[in-house]
């Protein structure tokens, strides 16, 4: 996939609520994070769940979020993070992210 994100890219998770089998947890939708690494392309579970082949495959990333960006009242350390595996089509560029 040529339009892959690269490690270090700032991304925002789509805030949609499709009714199907979605592996992007609700708590992270709409949140902003940074791509850590690319795991490769995998069959799309949103199709596999319905007995479809899950094609085209989707690129899977590890995306890191700061706890404070997920939970504004997080009471741990500022540096604490959550890393989540997210498929390409659930991410959007977050161009303002680098300046925040």
């Amino acid at each position, binding site marked *: 996939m040529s339009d892959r994100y690269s490690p270090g890219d700032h991304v925002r998770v789509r805030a949609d609520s499709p009714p199907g089998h979605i592996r992007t*947890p*609700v708590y*992270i939708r709409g949140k902003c994070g940074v791509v850590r690494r690319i795991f490769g392309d995998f069959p799309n579970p949103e199709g*596999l*769940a*319905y007995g479809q082949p899950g094609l085209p495959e989707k690129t899977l990333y590890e995306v890191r979020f700061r706890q404070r960006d997920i939970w504004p009242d997080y009471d741990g350390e500022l540096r604490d993070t959550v890393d989540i595996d997210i498929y390409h089509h659930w991410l959007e560029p977050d161009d303002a992210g680098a300046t925040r």
Partner: protein
Amino acid sequence: MRAPHDIGGLPAGPVDTEPHAATFWEKRIDAINVLLGDDKRRILSRDERRLAIESLGEEVYQTLGYYERWTAAVTRLLLQKGILSQDEIDAKIAEIRARMGEAEEKTEA
């Protein structure tokens, strides 16, 4: 909008950190799921099972234990795919209940 399985971040009580070993029954459900999804059979996939669990509804999801949800999910999928019928399942359960009732009477005697 959360489905019953999507619980990350919700309030909940303390974690029961005691490890409870898997029972023999749980291991059998696990094994059936492994076999139905293996390359020889490919009858159900991991994501089909997950979807079936997610679709159980809030009350059922909350009431059933982990492997009971798996049992519910695999049952639904086998019905959907026409591999088993509810009549067959009901009859088999009745047969097993009767058989186990007899076994129990024998033990007590």
